[in-house]
């Protein structure tokens, strides 16, 4: 019996946000606080001949200006947290990423000087007067072109701009042979364009060195304060970890971009000791465009072969992945272990090979953005399936049903071993598509489509996806190149009065942990939800944590909480047994009390907790207190899946695409709070659809990001979407105590190809048999496809 789990409990965190009392980093003020502003490179690639700070230093309010050469040699650059080596075993190229550039800038926005002044305005005024003399060099922005002969070189020690090459799956010759004997081969050349995460709260960081305690505090807009502390202390500044407190207060959205350790965090921390005053830096939006790690940016070629019955016989994928100018924290993992490993999809494809070349370019770093690698893999697979269906003139839904992996629950039946390293935990794929077709009214839609005659083209697109999330097993990720463990930590501290404080390493920045986690605790402990407080985001109060990304909070962080609760209840039972003068084995725990089975003798949770802290009448030899933590490291990733269907209408005269309907049926395992899960799906859909129709960076050939503001980069708005139609099936995860999978990224992963496929379908039905319209599918691009 659950009172809270499975219910749409309203969020406890909302009150502070709707009353304007949220506390984001830029809202924090510290006595004596100064303000920092960065001088950033206007060029993508240039030698820094000189930096003259004389005039700027004399400006009102200026306290200090740091340039690259002011940073001691003992301070390392920004580290990368993942290592993927070359196929031949050579070590990945990992060029230094200095906190401030000394000799050479490698992307527009590279930090050249850091100006600290009494006010933000003064810092900005002074930064304008720092005079930097550059010698401009040629730049390269496309990952494929970067690897070609004669391309401008980003780093001297990465020849051909190659960071690493990588391959996974069946031997290439076997795949080639299977493709050669296929009845039909569908081939597609395409880009998965670069997008900007654009959390609405710009990044912000406050460094505060307190000489009284010889201790640093960093407030930063991050998804994982402990990870930032670890990276910054151990790999950058070399200051002892126990002397650093990192706080991730309320964070205004992350979507991946706030996972990573950024130079600004280390700089404000280090410089606050240098000037012995706190320093706040908050990015302007145009700075965010230039320096927040971007997402996607793959250039690919893929071939999928089918036999005469429409069964997939092989897949070969080649991808050039853009890493940008420097390696961001998780960058190497994204196009490899989060991308190549998903190439099996939901299908029984017997031969799969994926080949990736990762390249440096003179652009902002690319790293995990909502879905991270999995959207790119899904896009590749699902585009091929719908296109193949058009080419073979078969139904795209039927084609999928024909190729789905049969159901397996991971308990009675074993997990499904793919050709590309992963073993899926549990899956039942046909029902999500069946349900989606039912919601669409598929047969009726096809009739309507055929009858369409108003100058508009109607199209339908499908995407059935699987993803790997709940990012962890430390041993697995370690074997794949992660340089940190990816477990999660929870501490359940029962207060003497029976109220419960839960400390979690899963930072919440919109996901609603303060509610979802409280639901779990309240139900498992049989206490009112108001008696539970979820605490996160402060390395001084939370024992440890790995943070929030890869849809891992509930599956990994939530499971850690469950395990802590188990320990609390186990000890509680012993105390209760003592109080009831019974054996612990004879007790049962329900609704907040221990009862001797078959009797009405019971003791309430609050009495047990009080006894634990006032142990006057107490089991002999037992420690007082009721406070446990647990480190949870799961056995496997979790594998949510789903079916997304888009219906679009194209205006033939202008090429405008209107998204008429969007149907998503997702299976994210068990659901703790349906309202919150739905909200996660909605948000994910909007980002995925945004990529299909609206968003995408435009770099010119000199490396300028020419749509680096909201006046040019098209952020999706409310009127770009219909209301979403969503539903779910439930296939529990067999390997974690909650049976949950993960919902944070599913919407983004599934939606992009569904929309693009719908546009392509509309075009084909209108007589325009194009294979691809590059994303974002702007009106001009669609119009061009019809008028070439």
């Amino acid at each position, binding site marked *: 019996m659950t009172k809270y789990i499975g219910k749409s409990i309203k969020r406890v965190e909302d009150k502070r946000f709707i009353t304007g*009392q949220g506390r984001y980093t830029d809202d924090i003020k510290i006595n004596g606080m100064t303000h920092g502003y960065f001088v950033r490179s206007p060029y993508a690639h240039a030698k820094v001949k000189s930096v003259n700070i004389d005039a700027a230093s004399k400006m009102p309010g200026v306290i200090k200006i740091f340039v690259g050469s002011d940073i001691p040699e003992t301070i390392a650059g920004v580290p990368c947290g993942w290592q993927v080596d070359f196929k031949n075993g050579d070590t990945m190229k990992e060029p230094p990423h200095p906190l401030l550039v000394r000799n050479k800038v490698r992307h527009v926005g590279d930090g050249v000087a850091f100006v600290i002044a009494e006010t933000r305005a003064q810092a900005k005024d002074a930064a304008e007067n720092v005079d930097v003399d550059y010698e401009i060099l040629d730049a390269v922005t496309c990952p494929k072109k970067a690897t070609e002969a004669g391309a401008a070189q980003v780093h001297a020690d990465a020849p051909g701009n190659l960071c690493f090459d990588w391959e996974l799956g069946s031997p290439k010759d076997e795949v080639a042979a299977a493709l050669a004997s296929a009845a039909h081969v569908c081939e597609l050349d395409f880009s998965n364009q670069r997008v900007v995460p654009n*959390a609405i709260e710009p990044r912000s960081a406050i460094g505060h060195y307190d000489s009284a305690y010889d201790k640093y505090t960093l407030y930063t807009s991050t998804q994982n304060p402990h990870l930032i502390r670890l990276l910054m202390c151990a790999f950058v500044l070399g200051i002892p970890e126990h002397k650093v407190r990192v706080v991730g207060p309320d964070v205004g*959205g992350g979507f991946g971009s706030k996972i990573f350790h950024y130079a600004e965090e280390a700089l404000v921390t280090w410089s606050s000791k240098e000037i012995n005053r706190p320093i706040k830096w908050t990015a302007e939006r145009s700075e965010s465009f230039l320096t927040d790690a971007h997402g996607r940016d793959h250039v690919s070629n893929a071939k999928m072969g089918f036999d005469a019955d429409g069964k997939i016989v092989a897949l070969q994928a080649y991808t050039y992945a853009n890493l940008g100018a420097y390696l961001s924290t998780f960058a190497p993992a994204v196009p490899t272990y989060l991308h190549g490993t998903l190439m099996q999809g939901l299908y029984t494809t017997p031969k799969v090979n994926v080949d990736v070349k990762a390249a440096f370019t003179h652009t902002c770093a690319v790293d995990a953005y909502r879905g991270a690698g999995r959207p790119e893999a899904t896009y590749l697979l699902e585009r091929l399936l719908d296109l193949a269906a058009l080419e073979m003139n078969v139904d795209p839904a039927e084609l999928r049903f024909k190729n789905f992996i049969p159901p397996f629950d991971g308990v009675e039946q074993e997990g499904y071993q793919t050709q590309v390293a992963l073993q899926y935990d549990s899956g039942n794929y046909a029902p999500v598509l069946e349900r989606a077709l039912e919601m669409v009214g598929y047969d009726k839609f096809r009739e309507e489509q055929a009858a369409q005659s108003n100058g508009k083209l109607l199209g339908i697109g499908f995407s059935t996806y699987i993803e790997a999330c709940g990012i962890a097993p430390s041993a697995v990720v370690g074997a794949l190149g992660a340089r940190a463990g990816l477990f999660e930590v929870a501490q359940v501290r029962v207060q003497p009065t029976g109220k419960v404080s839960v400390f979690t390493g899963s930072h919440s920045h919109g996901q609603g942990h303060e509610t979802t986690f409280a639901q779990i605790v309240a139900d498992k402990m049989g206490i009112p939800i108001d008696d539970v407080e979820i605490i996160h985001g402060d390395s001084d109060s939370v024992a440890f944590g790995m943070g929030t990304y890869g849809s891992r909070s509930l599956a990994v962080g939530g499971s850690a909480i469950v395990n802590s609760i188990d320990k609390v209840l186990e000890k509680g039972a012993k105390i209760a047994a003592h109080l009831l003068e019974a054996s612990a084995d004879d007790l049962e725990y329900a609704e907040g009390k221990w009862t001797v089975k078959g009797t009405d003798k019971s003791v309430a949770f609050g009495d047990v907790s009080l006894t634990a802290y006032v142990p006057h009448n107490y089991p002999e030899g037992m420690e007082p207190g009721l406070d446990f933590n647990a480190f949870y490291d799961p056995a496997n990733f979790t594998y949510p899946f789903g079916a997304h269907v888009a219906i679009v209408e194209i205006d033939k005269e202008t090429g405008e695409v209107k998204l008429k309907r969007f149907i998503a049926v997702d299976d994210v395992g068990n659901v703790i709070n349906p309202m919150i899960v739905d909200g996660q799906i909605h948000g994910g859909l*909007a980002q995925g659809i945004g990529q299909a129709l609206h968003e995408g960076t435009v770099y010119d050939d000199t490396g300028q990001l020419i749509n680096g503001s909201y006046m040019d980069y098209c952020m999706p708005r*409310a009127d770009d979407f219909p*209301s979403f139609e969503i539903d779910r099936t439930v296939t529990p995860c067999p390997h974690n105590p909650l049976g949950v999978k993960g919902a944070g990224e599913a919407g983004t992963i599934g939606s992009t190809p569904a929309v693009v496929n719908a546009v392509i379908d509309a075009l084909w039905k209108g007589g325009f048999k194009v294979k691809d319209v590059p994303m974002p599918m702007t009106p001009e691009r669609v119009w061009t496809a019809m008028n070439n």
Partner: protein
Amino acid sequence: MGHMIKVNVNGKEHSGGVEARTLLVDYLREDLGLTGTHVGCDTSSCGSCTIHIDGKAVKSCTMLAVQADGCNVTTVEGLATNGNLHPMQEGFKEEHGLQCGFCTPGMMMTAIDFLKTNPKPSEDEIRHALEGNFCRCTGYHNIVKSIQYAANKMQTSV
């Protein structure tokens, strides 16, 4: 410093000196400590900084503090009265219209002004009314429902 201004913010008179170039949003956040109004962009696009001036929704990043002299300003902090949430605040909570909460104050301020001129809006009208406010978390789906909730609530309470 600079110009003396007198502004009524959330029913309280404030007076003080501001530099001519100080944006209203910075005055509210830095000088008055009303940090519920946020800054999300530098091109007057995102709407996170939306407040009311004399009852009308305005982007406080696109107005100088000196221009607010003599005006009545309402920020998100002024929406609840005597501890009772405004129906719009209630709507956002009931319908899960927020996730990270950063765009929420601006979103609500715009929506409240919109409902004044259009108390019974259609879904399309609500979506159109939000063209000056970005949300990256919710996909707008539940924001629309939140505003519908508030509209219904405000109708029945009249």
